[in-house]
C-alpha cells in the first residue's frame, strides 16, 4: 500500500524532469536562435567601446605632448593649442586614380606641397626654430594627427554599427581592434622617443651608412638629404642618407636620380639598407638580403628609384633589418643597434661580390634619421 504511491510519484517525477529538460533546451535553442546575434552585438559594442575609450586617451595624450613640446622646447611665443587642433583635422586629398597614368608625379606633387606647408607652419609656430626642434615638432604633429584620425574612423564605425544594429560591421571592427590598438600603442610610444631625439629602429639603415660618412665632406643632394663620397677596396662609394640628426627621411629617390643623371655617375650597383617589418616568430635584428628597392612609404621614392635603375640597367640590392612596427618607431632596441655591425659586414661583402675595383657604387641608408648624424 505504502510502496505504490511513491513508485507512481517517482515515475511521474522522472517524466516531468525529462519534459522540463526538453523544454529548457528547446527554449534555449529558440532563445539562441532569436537573440544570439543581439547578445554578440552587445558584447562587441562593449568591447569596441572599451577600445574606443583607450584610443581617446591616447589621442588626447599625444595632442597634449605635442602642445607641451611646442611650448617648452619650441618656445612658442603664443598658445599653439588652437593651431594644433586645426592641424589635427588637416587632410591631404590624394589624386584621382581612375586614370592612373602619371599618378606618381601627382602624388609626389601633393605630398611635397603638404610637407612644405607643414614645415612652414611649424617653423612659424615655434620661436626656437632649430632644424632638430622643427623636425621633431613635425613628427609629433604627424603622430597626433594619425591617432586623431584612427580614433575618428573607429568611432564612426562604432556609432554606425550601433545605429543600424549591424552585426557584421561591429564584428569586423571587433576583430580588427587588437591590431588597431597595437598600432596606436606603437604610435603613442613613439612620442617619448621623438621628444628627446633618440634614434628609432627605422633608422638602422642610416646608422650603418653613417659609418662610411664620418669625417667625409657632405653635400646636400636633395631636400633633407646628404651625400658623401667614400672609398672601399678600390670602389668609389656614393653614400646617401637623410640629413641627421633631424627627424628627416629625405628624398633618396631624387638623390639617386641626381647622382646618376646630373653627376653622370655610372654605378655598378645601388645598395639600399632599410628596416623591414618582421613576421611574427622572426627575431628582431635578423638580417635579410634581397634585390629590389628597399624603401617603404607611399611609393613615390620607390617608383623613382626603380625607374632610374631600370633606365640605366643598374642592379638594385637590398639589405634589411627585421623589426616589429613598435620597434621601428620607438627608441632603437639593443638587438637592432648591434645589428649595424653585421649590416656593415654584409654591405662590404655585397660590394666585394657584386662589383669590382674601379667601380662606382651607390649606397643608400633609408629611414628616419632622428638622432643619427653623419
Amino acid at each position, binding site marked *: 500500500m505504502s510502496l505504490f504511491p511513491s513508485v507512481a510519484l517517482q515515475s511521474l517525477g522522472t517524466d516531468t524532469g525529462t519534459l522540463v529538460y526538453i523544454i529548457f533546451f528547446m527554449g534555449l535553442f529558440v532563445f539562441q536562435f532569436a537573440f544570439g546575434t543581439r547578445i*554578440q552585438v552587445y*558584447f562587441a559594442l562593449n*568591447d*569596441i567601446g*572599451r*577600445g574606443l575609450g*583607450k584610443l581617446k586617451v591616447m589621442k588626447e595624450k599625444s595632442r597634449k605632448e605635442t602642445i607641451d613640446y611646442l611650448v617648452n622646447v619650441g618656445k612658442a611665443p603664443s598658445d599653439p593649442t588652437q593651431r594644433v587642433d586645426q592641424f589635427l583635422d588637416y587632410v591631404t586629398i590624394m589624386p584621382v586614380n581612375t586614370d592612373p597614368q602619371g599618378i606618381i608625379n601627382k602624388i609626389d606633387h601633393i605630398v611635397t606641397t603638404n610637407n612644405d606647408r607643414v614645415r612652414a607652419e611649424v617653423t612659424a609656430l615655434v620661436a626656437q626654430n632649430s632644424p632638430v626642434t622643427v623636425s621633431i615638432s613635425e613628427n609629433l604633429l604627424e603622430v597626433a594627427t594619425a591617432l586623431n584620425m584612427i580614433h575618428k574612423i573607429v568611432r564612426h564605425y562604432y556609432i554606425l554599427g550601433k545605429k543600424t544594429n549591424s552585426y557584421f560591421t561591429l564584428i569586423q571592427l*571587433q*576583430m580588427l*581592434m*587588437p591590431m588597431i*590598438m*597595437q598600432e596606436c*600603442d606603437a604610435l603613442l610610444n613613439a612620442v617619448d622617443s621623438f621628444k*628627446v*631625439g*633618440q*634614434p628609432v629602429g627605422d633608422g638602422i639603415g642610416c*646608422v650603418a651608412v*653613417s659609418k662610411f660618412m*664620418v669625417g667625409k665632406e657632405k653635400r646636400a643632394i636633395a631636400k633633407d638629404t646628404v651625400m658623401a663620397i667614400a672609398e672601399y677596396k678600390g670602389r668609389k662609394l656614393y653614400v646617401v642618407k637623410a640629413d*641627421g*640628426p633631424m627627424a628627416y627621411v629625405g628624398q633618396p629617390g631624387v638623390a639617386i636620380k641626381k647622382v646618376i643623371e646630373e653627376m653622370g655617375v655610372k654605378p655598378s650597383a645601388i645598395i639600399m639598407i632599410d628596416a623591414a617589418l618582421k613576421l611574427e616568430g622572426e627575431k628582431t635584428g635578423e638580417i635579410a638580403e634581397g634585390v629590389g628597392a628597399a624603401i617603404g612609404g607611399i611609393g613615390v621614392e620607390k617608383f623613382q628609384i626603380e625607374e632610374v635603375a631600370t633606365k640605366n640597367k643598374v642592379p638594385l640590392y637590398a639589405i634589411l633589418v627585421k623589426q616589429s612596427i613598435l620597434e621601428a618607431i*620607438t*627608441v*632603437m*632596441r*639593443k638587438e*637592432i*643597434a*648591434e645589428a*649595424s655591425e653585421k649590416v656593415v659586414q654584409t654591405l662590404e661583402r655585397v660590394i666585394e661580390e657584386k662589383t669590382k675595383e674601379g667601380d662606382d657604387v651607390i649606397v643608400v641608408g633609408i629611414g628616419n634619421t632622428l*638622432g*643619427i*648624424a*653623419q
Partner: protein
Amino acid sequence: MISSVPATDKKSKLLVYSIEECPVCNQKTKRAFVVGDYITKEGSKCTKCGNQTRVSLVYAESSKPSG
C-alpha cells in the same frame, strides 16, 4: 565572451644608453643617454689612449633581464 581588446601589456622599463667609441683603440664606453646625444656626436676623451671618442650607438635595453 573573451575580450578582443588586449589588456595593456606589462611593459618592462627601457633604459637608454649611449655608446662612446674611440676611433683609434676601439674602446667602447657605455653611459646613460642624455638629451642632445646623437650618433657621430663627439664624446669624451678615451680613458685608454686619450683620443676623442664618438657616440657610435644609442639604444634601449630592458631594465629587467628577459625571460
